[in-house]
Every structure is written in structure tokens, then in C-alpha cells.
């Protein structure tokens, strides 16, 4: 028997790792993976809450999150490819033209 808070702390840790990855990573693809990590952390809390409250809707949400993640990955990676074609780099610090 594992308390719910354990799951939540694990989920929060994964999410925090995702945020940290977004903050410190320079490679666009890795940053993208950090986002996936955050989504996974959230999914864990969804499933844990679903089990805690006996509400299957929590698991349904996970599917929706997965679908969104898949769509996001498809579009995002396509964007990355397009960026790489024009900028010849994957370093996010060098993709910074969108400013005044």
C-alpha cells in the first residue's frame, strides 16, 4: 500500500525535472523531450488520482494527453526539421531571431 502522496511527489519530481531540462538544455530536441517528461509527470498524477478517487475519467485524460503529445511531437519535430533546414543548428540559443 503506497500513499497517494508518494505518487504525487514522484510525479512532481518528474515535472520539475522537465522544467529544469527546458531551462538548462540547449538542444531543441532535448527541450522537446523535457516537455514530454513534464507531460508524463502529469499523467502519473492523473492515474494516481484516478485510482485514489475511483474515477476512471482520470485515465481517460491520460489518453487525451497522449494524443495531444503525439500531435505535438509530430508538428514540433516537423518544425525542428524546418528550423534545421534554414538555420543549420539545433542550438536554441542560436535560434533567437524573434525579437526586436
Amino acid at each position, binding site marked *: 500500500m503506497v500513499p497517494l502522496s508518494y*505518487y504525487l511527489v514522484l510525479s512532481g519530481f518528474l515535472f520539475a525535472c522537465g522544467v529544469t531540462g527546458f531551462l538548462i538544455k540547449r538542444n531543441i530536441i532535448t527541450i522537446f523531450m523535457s516537455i514530454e517528461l513534464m507531460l508524463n509527470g502529469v499523467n502519473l498524477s492523473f492515474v494516481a488520482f484516478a485510482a485514489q478517487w475511483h474515477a476512471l475519467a482520470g485515465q481517460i485524460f491520460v489518453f487525451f494527453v497522449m494524443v495531444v503529445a503525439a500531435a505535438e511531437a509530430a508538428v514540433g519535430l516537423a518544425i525542428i526539421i524546418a528550423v534545421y533546414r534554414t538555420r543549420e543548428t*539545433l542550438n536554441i540559443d542560436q535560434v533567437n531571431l524573434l525579437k526586436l
Partner: protein
Amino acid sequence: MLNLHLILFLAFGAVAVAGAVNLLAQTHPINSALSLIAVMAALAGEYLLLGAEFVAAVQVIVYAGAIMVLFVFTIMLLNAGVEERTQGSRVSVLLGIPGMLLGSILVAWVVLRHSGTEAVAVGSLPGDPKTIGQMLFHEFLLPFEITSVLILIAIMGAVVLASKPPSTPAAGLTREAE
């Protein structure tokens, strides 16, 4: 079985934590990707512990089997190398990291302060495909259909974005083609 449950939770959790930390520590994106796959597999285990066997299976098939393959594919396609340690953003370190830490601590404090003694039993909520399917096609029919539209748009967007521009051969393109 009490201890076994906790042990399994800790084991999968350890793998997930190790994978997440490794994701941050690695400098090569492919290592980060493999770490992430490990995290996802570990999370699939956690889902099994929580009784969500269908979610676990889909987690492996969709996340590990499809999305991450896409990532690996992209890394291979673009021949991504070791990360450059450029110092492009002071804000992200000076503001973002403290912000992240503060937010995490606050949330953790709230969670731990309010967590009761209730524990989640193994398989306490049967997440079998049949029940989920019925729920998905009754109560969540509209969101489900909308996500189908979303994914269709995403497919088209990906095709348009990643397709080669017809007449202007980009520099990166010639390298792929060799």
C-alpha cells in the same frame, strides 16, 4: 503484499527518477531520448501497479513505441551532435531555476501537508480496455472526436512543415541526400 507493492513502487520510481536525472545530465540527445524511454517504461510499470493496465500498454505502444521513435528518428535524420554549452540566457538560470525550485517546494509542501493516510491499493481501480472504451465512446465522445480532428490537423501540419520546399534546395537538405 504490502511491502511488495511498496518495493515495486520504489523500484520503478527509482528507474524513473534515474532516467529523468540522466536526461538532464546527458549531453547527447540520443542518450537523453533513451533515458526518457526508460522513464516511460518505468511509468508504465507504475501504471500497472495502479491497476491501469490499458494505460500502461498504451503508454508503451504510443509513447515509447511511436513518439520516442519519432524523436530518435529526428535525431538520426538531423545527425544531432553533442550539446553545445552556450550561454544564451542568463534569465533562465537566474530566474527560472529559483522559480522552478520555489514552485516545486511549495507544491510539495502543500501535497505533504494535506496528504492523509489513505493508501492506494494495487489494482484498486480496474482500468480494463472494455470499461475505458465504453467511457471513451459515451461520456467522452465529443472530446474524443475533437482529438481525432486535432491529430488529423497535426498530421497535415507535419507533412506541410517537413516537406521539402520545391525549388530552393536548403543546405541541410543536400547533406541528407548524399
